[in-house]
């Protein structure tokens, strides 16, 4: 049986990728770094690095936002794509990049103690202050 594949890409299409397997339930991160990088907050799905195939990395750039994390974006269009836990075996992929249907539902908010003051979280999902 072939495993399901989920395709995604940046806004301009220069960076395209495929994730093999079902997408784990996405997490919304409201920390101030994710908020600045995305322009609102980050919703991403953590997949095994071995499950992510990036088809063309020519325009992919990495910004080291902390000791353990680098953030991947497209140099042409600026799309926020990847949150790479450098020393771990997973990478978080931005949900907005995926073609529908994603087949998954957001399940958790984290770092809500740092959330922006201009919106409320009202979807009833669990909220973790850290």
């Amino acid at each position, binding site marked *: 049986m072939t495993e399901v594949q989920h395709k995604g890409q940046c806004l301009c299409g220069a960076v395209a990728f495929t994730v093999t397997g079902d997408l784990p339930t996405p997490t919304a991160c409201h920390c101030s770094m994710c*908020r*600045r990088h995305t322009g*609102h907050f980050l919703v991403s799905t953590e997949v095994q690095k071995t499950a992510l195939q990036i088809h063309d990395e020519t325009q992919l750039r990495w*910004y080291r936002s902390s000791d353990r994390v680098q953030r991947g974006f497209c*140099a042409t269009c*600026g*799309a926020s794509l990847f949150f790479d836990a450098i020393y771990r075996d997973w990478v978080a992929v931005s949900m907005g990049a995926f073609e*529908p249907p994603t087949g998954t539902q957001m399940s958790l908010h984290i770092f809500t103690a740092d959330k922006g003051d*201009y919106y409320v979280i009202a979807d009833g999902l669990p909220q973790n202050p850290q």
Partner: protein
Amino acid sequence: MARVDITGGCLCGAIRYSAITARDIVTLCHCTECRRFTGHHWAAVRVLERDLQISGSAKLAWYAHSETARRGFCADCGSSLIFRFNDADFLGIAAGSIDTPTGLTAGQHIFCNEKGDYYEIADGVPQSESW
């Protein structure tokens, strides 16, 4: 609508700005392009061009996603910062880039017909299918 003094910048700090907003509400856009640009969806406040001062603008990169509008981001860290129509005298500044406290409130969801399938809009803020 009230105008608000704001400051903000990108994640790496190369780009900083100060502005007086044209409105005190944040518009949340769920269109496919905004979702791809941000990784989730767009949230921005309107600022007249003449009310915006940017430092580090040499690092501000632009992508023209259509013939009528373009998006600005930091070339060093990739932070999503600006949406603007080419012929308008105002811009949308990413709310997540604004220093806290922002003094702003979410005021409208737009292009909800294009929203992602993995989340619900449940905050009671008015929703529309276009602008």
